[in-house]
């Protein structure tokens, strides 16, 4: 339960950072659910079309770095 809440909090943090401060996006989404989804999908579409490969590259680099960091930690723990 706490993990789920943490994850949702993380997503909300990302959205709060992405969306300007003056916009109460949660109220807008609750009030207009379908248009909000459409706007999000269209935004995602254009981002994916324009900067998709760069974002995928950055994400894969980040994931690979995290994986190697965790593996290093595990190996160093085992070595100790």
């Amino acid at each position, binding site marked *: 339960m706490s993990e789920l809440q943490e994850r949702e909090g993380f997503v909300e943090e990302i959205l709060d950072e992405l969306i300007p401060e003056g916009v109460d996006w949660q109220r807008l*989404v609750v009030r207009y659910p379908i248009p909000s*989804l459409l706007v999000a999908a269209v935004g995602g579409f254009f981002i994916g079309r324009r900067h998709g490969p760069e974002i995928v590259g950055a994400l894969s680099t980040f994931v690979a770095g995290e994986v190697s960091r965790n593996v290093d930690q595990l190996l160093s723990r085992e070595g100790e």
Partner: protein
Amino acid sequence: MADLKDIKSNLEDGAETAHEAVTDGVDAARKRFQKLGDQAQDQYQKVSEQVQDRYKKVSHDVRRGAERASKEIRRGAERARETYGDVAETAQKTYTQVRSQAGNVSREVSLYVRDNPAKAVMIAAGVGFLLGLVVRRGSRDDEA
């Protein structure tokens, strides 16, 4: 004098004979003409009857054909009307069903979005992002 009388009587006989011959000839000719006329009339009547019979037969056939065609057309129109009615009814039912289902889906999506706004927005953005990537790749492949 006697000679004159003989001549006169001969002439009278001859005239009478000629008159009889002409009368007979005229009678014979009249009879023949009448016979010919009767034959022609019979022939004409026969031909006329035949023509009338044929006309009646043809007109009967045409009337029967027209009646049959009219029946077929009426039957076809009825069938087309029934088919149109069935198709319209099915289309109406399908439209109502699809509308109801779309309404249900929209309500469920709205509920989910209200419960989890951040997750829903991120999922929508992610789906859009993936679609954008796919479209970009497709357009690149087309250009290549």
